[in-house]
C-alpha cells in the first residue's frame, strides 16, 4: 500500500457522511424500542392501522402483469416505456392539452420524482443559458442537493411566512420579480413540501404573469397529484395554467405517493416546448443524460402505472382509492386540530387544517422537536414537519400530548 495512506487504505481520506436528514428519521425510529413510538418522518402513507398500503388496483395490475405469458424483461428504450410516458403526460397536462396534441411535449420516464428532477436539472445545466434556479424557502431537503450536483446555482425565494403559517405572497412576488431574466424557478405543483401551504388559483395566475413577463422558466415538482385535494385535475391546475398560455416549462412527476409505488421508483420528466421539432431535439439530449447515469429505467413500476391509467375501470378504481387516502389525511388534520384545541394547547393551530397534502409544518422548533423525540418517541424531521399520513385516530392523542408538552415546556 502507498505510504501516502497511513492506515494502508486508499479510502483513508473519506469521512463518514451524516445520515440523510429525512430518511435518517426512519433509521432512528427503527432503532427505538419503545412501544409507543410514532414515525411521522418520511412521507409514506399509512393506513388507520398504521400499516403501509399497497392499493388494490396496484395489486390487480401486478397480477395481470405477472400472469401475462407474453411479458418480457427486455431493456426499455432509454426514455422508458412509451405508453407510460404518453399516459403520464396526459395525466398532468390533461388529455386535451394542446401542447400534447401539437407534439410539443417530450416525456421521459424517470426514477420517481428525484430522478426526474435530476435529469431535468442536468439537461438545463447543459443546454439552457441560465444556470440559476430559484427554490422556495423552505423546500424538500433533497432539492438543493439535486440542483447543485447537476451544476445549477441555487438561490431562494421567500415562500413560508412563520407569522401567519401561510404564504408570504408579497415576498414571493418580490423575490421572483428580482430574479434575472430567464432564471429557472422551482414550483411545487400542489401540496407544498414541507409546509402544506399552496397558492390560491388567483395567486397562481399572478405568479404565472410575473414569471412570463420576466421569461422565468417554470420547473414544476408534482409529487402529490390527487393527494392534495383528492382530485387529480384540481391538483394539476397550476401546471395546466402555465401550459395553457403557450409557454415552456418542465414538470417532474412522481407516482410514489399517489399510486403508493414508493420503492418502484416511477416518475416522469416532461418538457413542454414551443415547437415539435424542438421537443424532439430536446428528447434526444435527455437520452444523453440518462444513458451514462443508468442506461434505461426500470420496467416494473412503469408497467403498473400504464396498466392502470389506460384501463378506464382501473383508472376509476384508482381515483376512488386515491381520494380515500386524501380524505383520511384530511380527517387526521381535523382530529389533531380538535385534540390540541381540547387540551387548550397555546397558539393558533388552524394551520393544521388549512395546510394541504401529506405534511403539516407545525411551527415547532428544533428543540421542541428533539424534546418530542426524546420524551414521547415521536419521530419527525427537525424542521417541525410531520407526515399526517403516519397518524391514526389511535395515535393522534399521543401526538397532541407531545405537542402540548413541547409547546408549554420549551420556549
Amino acid at each position, binding site marked *: 500500500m502507498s505510504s501516502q495512506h497511513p492506515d494502508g487504505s486508499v479510502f483513508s481520506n473519506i469521512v463518514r457522511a451524516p445520515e440523510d436528514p429525512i430518511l435518517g428519521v426512519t433509521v432512528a425510529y427503527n432503532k427505538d424500542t419503545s412501544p409507543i413510538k410514532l414515525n411521522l418522518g418520511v412521507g409514506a402513507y399509512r393506513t388507520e392501522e398504521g400499516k403501509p398500503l399497497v392499493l388494490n388496483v396496484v395489486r390487480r395490475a401486478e397480477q395481470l402483469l405477472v400472469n401475462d405469458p407474453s411479458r418480457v424483461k427486455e*431493456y426499455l428504450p432509454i426514455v422508458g416505456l412509451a405508453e407510460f410516458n404518453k399516459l403520464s403526460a396526459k395525466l398532468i397536462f390533461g388529455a386535451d392539452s394542446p401542447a400534447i396534441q401539437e407534439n410539443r411535449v417530450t416525456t421521459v420516464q424517470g426514477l420517481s420524482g428525484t430522478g426526474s428532477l435530476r435529469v431535468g436539472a442536468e439537461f438545463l445545466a447543459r443546454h439552457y443559458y441560465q444556470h440559476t434556479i430559484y427554490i422556495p424557502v423552505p423546500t424538500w431537503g433533497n432539492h438543493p442537493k439535486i440542483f447543485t450536483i447537476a451544476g445549477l446555482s441555487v438561490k431562494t425565494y421567500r415562500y413560508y411566512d412563520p407569522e401567519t403559517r401561510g404564504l408570504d405572497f408579497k415576498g414571493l412576488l418580490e423575490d421572483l420579480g428580482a430574479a434575472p431574466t430567464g432564471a429557472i424557478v422551482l414550483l411545487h405543483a400542489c401540496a407544498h413540501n414541507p409546509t402544506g401551504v399552496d397558492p390560491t388559483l388567483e395567486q397562481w395566475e399572478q405568479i404565472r404573469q410575473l414569471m412570463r413577463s420576466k421569461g422565468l422558466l417554470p420547473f414544476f415538482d408534482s409529487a402529490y397529484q390527487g393527494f392534495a385535494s383528492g382530485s387529480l385535475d384540481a391538483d394539476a391546475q397550476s401546471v395546466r395554467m402555465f401550459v395553457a398560455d403557450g409557454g415552456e416549462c418542465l414538470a417532474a412527476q412522481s407516482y410514489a405517493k399517489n399510486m403508493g409505488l414508493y420503492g418502484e421508483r416511477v416518475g416522469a420528466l416532461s418538457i413542454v416546448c414551443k415547437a415539435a421539432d424542438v421537443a424532439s431535439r430536446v428528447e434526444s439530449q435527455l437520452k444523453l443524460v440518462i*444513458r451514462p447515469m443508468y*442506461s434505461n429505467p*426500470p420496467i416494473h413500476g412503469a408497467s403498473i402505472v400504464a396498466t392502470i391509467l389506460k384501463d378506464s375501470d382501473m383508472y376509476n378504481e384508482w381515483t376512488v382509492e386515491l381520494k380515500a387516502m386524501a380524505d383520511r389525511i384530511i380527517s387526521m388534520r381535523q382530529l389533531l386540530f380538535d385534540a390540541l384545541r381540547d387540551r387548550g394547547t397555546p397558539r393558533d393551530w388552524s394551520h393544521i387544517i388549512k395546510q394541504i397534502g401529506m405534511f403539516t409544518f407545525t411551527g415547532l422548533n428544533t428543540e421542541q422537536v428533539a424534546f418530542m423525540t426524546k420524551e414521547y418517541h415521536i419521530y419527525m424531521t427537525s424542521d417541525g414537519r410531520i407526515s399526517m399520513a403516519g397518524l391514526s385516530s389511535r395515535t393522534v392523542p399521543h401526538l397532541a400530548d407531545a405537542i402540548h408538552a413541547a409547546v408549554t415546556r420549551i420556549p
Partner: protein
Amino acid sequence: MASTMLSLVSAALPLQENHKGKMNLGSSDCSTFLRKEKRNPFMKTKSFGRINMAIAVNTSRFEGVTMAPPDPILGVSEAFRADNSLMKLNLGVGAYRTEELQPYVLNVVKKAENLMLERGENKEYLPIEGLAAFNKVTAELLFGAGNPVIEQQRLATVQGLSGTGSLRLAAALIERYFPGAKVLISSPTWGNHKNIFNDARVPWSEYRYYDPKTVGLDFDGMISDIKAAPEGSFVLLHGCAHNPTGIDPTPEQWEKIADVIQEKNHIPFFDVAYQGFASGSLDADASSVRLFAARGMELLVAQSYSKNLGLYAERIGAINVVCSSADAAARVKSQLKRIARPMYSNPPIHGARIVANVVGDPALFNEWKEEMELMAGRIKNVRQKLFDSLSAKDKCGKDWSFILKQIGMFSFTGLSKVQSENMTNKWHVYMTKDGRISLAGLSLAKCEYLADAIIDSFHCVS
C-alpha cells in the same frame, strides 16, 4: 386592463432582454462559454445557436439544442425494429435470445415473482443503499460466502441501477474523493464506459488490450500501459467475458496484472456484467475478482444481473468496495449513499427482491445455475456452428478460430466500420460499428446466413 396587458406580454418570450441586449446565445457569450468549460472539462461544449431578433418572440428557449446522435449500441435495436426485411438479424445489444430468437424470462425469475405476489409484500422505500437481503446475497455470489472481506465487514455494498448505475456511483465517488485520478480503460471497451466517466467528470485514458493481428490479448501492451500510468490510477477490468472482444486474460495473466497494479498502487475496478455467462460457472467467472481480493487489495466491483438473470429492464446491480478496514467500508458506504440520494433517492425494489429470492433460496439457486448453464451452453453451440460455417464457406482460408477462443456473449469479428455497415445495409445484419456481434442474438438456424454475410463483408468490402 392592466392584467390584460400583462397577459399579452406574458405570451411573448422577451429574449431581447437576455444578456443585456446581446442577441446571440452562442459562443459569443463568453461568460457562459467559460463557465461551461470550467464545469465540464471532459465534455464537448454545446453551442446554442443564433436567435434571429425578428422571431425572438415565438422562439423556444431551447431552439439551439441540437439533435443528438442515436446511442451506438441501443440505437442498433431501434434501427433493427425499423427494418422490414424478412432476413433481418439483430446482433446488436447483448440481450439473450432463445434458439427461436425470442426474449427469455428465466423460470426461476417467474417462480420468484409468483412467490413475491403471493406474499403480498409492500412497496415501501428501500434504504438508500438498497435491499439488505439483496446486498448480502450479491456480495456472497461475487466473493463467495465466508470470504474474509465479508466476514471482516471490509466490504461496502450498495444496490445500484444495474451495471451502468453501479459504475456511475463509483465514478462519482472517484471524482469526489480522488480528484485528478484517472481511470484506465481497455481499448476497446463497452461504449458506455467513456460516457459514464465523462459525465461523472473523471478523466480516463486507454490501455492496450485487443491485438487485431492475433485477434487476441495484447498482454505486453496492457501491462506496459498500466505500468506507465500515474500511481494511484483506477484500472477498469472486465471480470470475465470482456465486452466487446470476448477475450479474457488467463489465470496466469491475471496474476501478472495484479502484480503490476500492486506495484503502482493502482486501484482495480472490476466490471462484472457476465458472472456465470462466460464459462457457465458462477464461481469460475468470479475467479479474477477473488484473486485480487485474496491478495488483500482494495478494489471496486460493479455487478449487473441484466444478463445472467435476464433482468435487463429491472435495472438491478450493485457497487462493491473492498476496503482494508471495516471502518473504511462504513465510511465509503455512507458516501456512496450521499451520491445516490440526489440521483434517485433509493433504488427500485422489484429486481432486488427477485435476485434476493433466487440467490437466497437453495432450490431456486440450483435451478438458476442449471438455466445459466443452458444459456451459456447455447452460446457455445452457436459459436461452434458459426465457426464451422465460416470455415466451410470461406475460400480464402482465413483463420476463424478466434470465434471459438473468445468467451461470453459477444464476438469481436474484426470487421471494420465500413464492413459492419455492409453487414447492415446489404445483409440486414444489425451489429455495432466496432465489429462486435452478439452471439446471444444468433440461432443455429441463422449461422450459415451470417457466415455468408461476414465473408462477403470481409473480403469484398474495404
